[in-house]
C-alpha cells in the first residue's frame, strides 16, 4: 500500500463529522448530582488529621494548614469516623475551617477542633505505633 494512499484514507477518516446531539445525559446528570452534593455540604468537626505516619491533633494541623491544602489526608471526626480526602479551599496558616472532598466527589465543610492546640506535642502520636 502506498504511503500517500494511507495518508489520504487517514485524513478522510479524521474528517468524519460526529453528528451527535452535542450533549450527554450521563455527564449532565453526574454534574447535577455533584452540584447538589456541593449545595448540601455536610459540616463535620475534625479532631485529628493523619499527616504522614502521624496522627496530629486538629489544633496543630490548623497551625500548618498552608502546607496541607491539595494533599490527600485522613480526617478523624469527633464521632470517630475517618474520611479520606483532599482540602480544596485555600487556607492560610492558622485557619480552622475549610472544605474537603473525598475520592467519590462528596464534599464536606469542616471545622477543626482546636481545643488541644496547647498540648500539641502530647497529642501527637504515631499511627504506626512507633
Amino acid at each position, binding site marked *: 500500500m502506498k504511503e500517500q*494512499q494511507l495518508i489520504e484514507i487517514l485524513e478522510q*477518516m479524521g474528517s*468524519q463529522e460526529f453528528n451527535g446531539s452535542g*450533549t450527554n445525559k450521563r455527564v449532565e446528570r*453526574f454534574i447535577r448530582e455533584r452540584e447538589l452534593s456541593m449545595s448540601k455540604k455536610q459540616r463535620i468537626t475534625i479532631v485529628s488529621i493523619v499527616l504522614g505516619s502521624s496522627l496530629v491533633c486538629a489544633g496543630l494541623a490548623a497551625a500548618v494548614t498552608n502546607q496541607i491544602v491539595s494533599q490527600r489526608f485522613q480526617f478523624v471526626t469527633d464521632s470517630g469516623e475517618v474520611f479520606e480526602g483532599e482540602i480544596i479551599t485555600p487556607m492560610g496558616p492558622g485557619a480552622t475551617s475549610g472544605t474537603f472532598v473525598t475520592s467519590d466527589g462528596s464534599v464536606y465543610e469542616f471545622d477543626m477542633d482546636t481545643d488541644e492546640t496547647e498540648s500539641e506535642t502530647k497529642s501527637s502520636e504515631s499511627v504506626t505505633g512507633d
Partner: protein
Amino acid sequence: MEPKTHQLTSSGVSLVSINIPSEVQSHDPEAELIERAKAEPDAFGTLYRMHYQAITAYLYRRVGDQSLAEDLAADTFIAAFRSIRKYQCRGVPFRSWLYRIAWNKASRWHTKHKRRIPAPISQGVTQDKCQQQRNELVRAAIESLCERDKSIVTLVYFTPLNTEQVAEALGVPSGTVKSRLSRARKALATQIERLGGVS
C-alpha cells in the same frame, strides 16, 4: 503571597517596576474556568460543553459507533471531573489532556472487546458501503499497532491537534512525533496488507 515584580525596559532609558498580583496575571478565560472547576461543578459543566463534541468525534473515529463513542465520552468527562484538581494549567493544554483520557478509554475498550477481523472488502457493493468496510479494516489495523504507534496515529489524524500539541500531550519533542509518525504509518500499512489490504 508576594506579588511578582515585572520590570519593563524601554531601549535602556528607564526601568519601571510594576507589581502585578498573581491572581490577575492570567487572562486566559479557560485557565480561569479550570481553576473554578476544581471546586465548582457548574464551571466544569461549561468546560464539558466546550469540549464534548470534539472529544466525542475523536472517540467516534476510534470506535466507529456513535452510541459507543458517546458512552466513552461520558466516561472521559467523568474521569476528567474526578481528577481535575490534579490538572495544572501550565504544560499540557486542557484539550490535549482530555484527548489523553479519551485515548486511554478507547484503548481500554478495544483491549477488553477484542474486535473481529473485518471481512475483506467485497466487490460490487455501493461506494458508501465500500468506504465503511475500508474504514473498519483500517480501524482494526490501527488497534493492532503497539500503544506508541497507535497514540501517534490517532492523535495526529483523528484530532485537530497540531504536531506541537500532540508533542505536548505525549510529553515528547515535536521532532519525535514526526519520526514516530513516519514509523507508525509504515507499521500500519503492513498491518492493513496483512488484514487483506484496501483497494
